[in-house]
C-alpha cells in the first residue's frame, strides 16, 4: 500500500484526531455558510414552479437528502470492505459513525417525499419503484445499526456489521433492479412521473448549493461522531488503566 493515497497513515487514532480537529471548523463553517446561501436561494431566490407552485421547494431538501442517503451507504460499504480486508482500525469506527447519519437522511428523504407526494400526486405513499427501494435502503441501514449494537463485544458488532454492509452494497443494485421490474409488472396506476421538463438553471443552482451544504454537513457530523467514539475509547482505556 505504498501509494500516494495511503489511508493507513491515518490508522493512528491520535493523528486522525488532530486532522479531524483541524478539519471540523472548515466543515461546519462551510456547511453553515452554504446552508445560509442555499436556503435563501431555495426559499426566496428561486422561482416557484409553474405547475407545482411553492411545493417545489421541498425538492431542495428532498433531493440532497436522497443523495446523502445513497452516498452514505456507498461509504458504509467502503468502510466495511476496508475494515475486513485491510483491518483498518478506523474503518470500524467510521461504519458505526456513518450508519445512523445515513439512516437519518434516508428517513428525511422518505418523509419529505411523502409530504411532497401529497400535493403533487395526491397521496402520501405509492408503491413506486423509487420509493420502495428507498424504503428497503432504510431497512438495510436499520439492520446495520441493530447488528452493530447487538453484541456485548463492541468490536464483534462492528465487524459483523461490516459484513452486512458489503452484502447490502452488492444487493442494492439487485434490489433496485428487481423493484423497477416489479413496478413495471404491476403498472396499472396513473403515470406518476414527475420529470416533466428538465430543471431550469434558476432551480438547479440553489439545488447544487444545497447538495454541497448537505455534503459538508454529512461529513461534519460523521467526523464529529468518529472523534467522540475515539475519545470515548481512549477515556475508557484510561479509566481501566487507573
Amino acid at each position, binding site marked *: 500500500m505504498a501509494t500516494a493515497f495511503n489511508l493507513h497513515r491515518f490508522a493512528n487514532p491520535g493523528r486522525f484526531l488532530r486532522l479531524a480537529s483541524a478539519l471540523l471548523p472548515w466543515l461546519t463553517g462551510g456547511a453553515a455558510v452554504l446552508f445560509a446561501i442555499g436556503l435563501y436561494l431555495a426559499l426566496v431566490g428561486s422561482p416557484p414552479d409553474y405547475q407545482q407552485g411553492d411545493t417545489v421547494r421541498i425538492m431542495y431538501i428532498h433531493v440532497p437528502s436522497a443523495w446523502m442517503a445513497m452516498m452514505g451507504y456507498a461509504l458504509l460499504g467502503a468502510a466495511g470492505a476496508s475494515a*475486513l480486508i485491510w483491518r483498518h482500525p478506523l474503518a470500524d469506527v467510521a461504519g458505526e459513525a456513518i450508519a445512523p447519519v445515513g439512516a437519518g437522511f434516508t428517513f428525511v428523504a422518505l418523509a419529505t417525499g411523502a409530504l411532497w407526494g401529497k400535493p403533487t400526486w395526491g397521496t402520501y405513499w405509492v408503491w413506486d419503484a423509487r420509493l420502495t427501494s428507498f424504503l*428497503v435502503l432504510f*431497512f*438495510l441501514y*436499520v*439492520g446495520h445499526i*441493530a*447488528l452493530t449494537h*447487538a*453484541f*456485548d463485544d463492541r468490536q*464483534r458488532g462492528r*465487524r*459483523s456489521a461490516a*459484513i*452486512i454492509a*458489503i*452484502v*447490502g452494497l*452488492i*444487493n442494492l443494485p*439487485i*434490489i433496485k*433492479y*428487481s*423493484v423497477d*421490474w*416489479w413496478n413495471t*409488472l404491476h403498472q396499472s396506476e396513473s403515470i406518476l412521473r414527475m420529470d416533466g421538463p428538465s430543471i431550469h438553471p434558476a432551480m438547479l443552482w440553489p439545488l447544487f448549493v444545497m447538495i454541497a451544504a448537505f455534503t459538508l454537513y454529512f461529513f461534519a457530523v460523521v467526523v464529529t461522531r468518529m472523534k467522540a467514539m475515539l475519545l470515548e475509547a481512549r477515556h475508557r482505556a484510561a479509566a481501566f488503566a487507573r
Partner: protein
Amino acid sequence: MSAFVALLRRDLVLSYRQGIDAWVVVLFFLAAGILFPFAIGPEPNALMRVSTGVVLSMAALAALLSLDRLYQNDFEDGSLDLMALGPLPLELAALAKALAHWLSTGLPLLVAAPLLALMLNAPAESYGPMLLALALATPALSLLGGLGAALTLGSRRGGILLTLLILPLYVPVLIFAAGIISRSLLLEGDPTGALLLLCGLDLGLLAITPWATAAALRQALR
C-alpha cells in the same frame, strides 16, 4: 467431499431425530397463513386474490424464524470450533449447513404449501407456478438466512434481529417468485424472464453467501 457429506448427514439426522422441530416450522407456516382469513374476511374472491402472496410471504417468515438455531447449538457445544479447525473449509461447511436447512425446512414447506393454498382458495392453475416459485425461492432464503444466522450468532436478540437483517435482502427473491406466479396466470403471460432472474439470483447467492457466512462465523469464533 466426504466431510461435506458427513456434515450434511449429521445435520439431517439431528433434525430428523428432533422431529418435532421440523413439524413446528410447518405448523407455524399453516397457523400464520390461517390468520389471514380472520383478518381480511372469509370472502372467497378476496382470499383468492392474496392466496399465493400469503403462501410466499409466510414461507419466508417460517423459514426465517427457524434459522436462529442453525448455528446456535453448534456454537454452544463447541461443534462449530471443530468445524472451523477441521479439514473442510468453513465456506463449504456453511454451504452444507444451508443445504441441510433447506432440506429440513424448505422441502417440508413445499409439501405444506398446496394445503395452505387450498385453504386460501388459490386458483387451480396457480399451484404449479407457485410450487416452482417456492422451490426456487426457498434455497435463496436458506442461503441468505444462513448468513443472517452466522452474523447474529451470540447476539442479544438473535431471531428477531436476523429477520430484520435478512428481510430487506429477501425483497428481490420475493418479487421474482411472485413474478413467476403472476405472469403464469396472465393470458399469454411468459414467466421465463422471472424464472431466469430467480435462478440467476440463486446462483449469485450460492457464489457469495458461503464466503460471507464463513467470514461472519470467524467473527463469532474469534
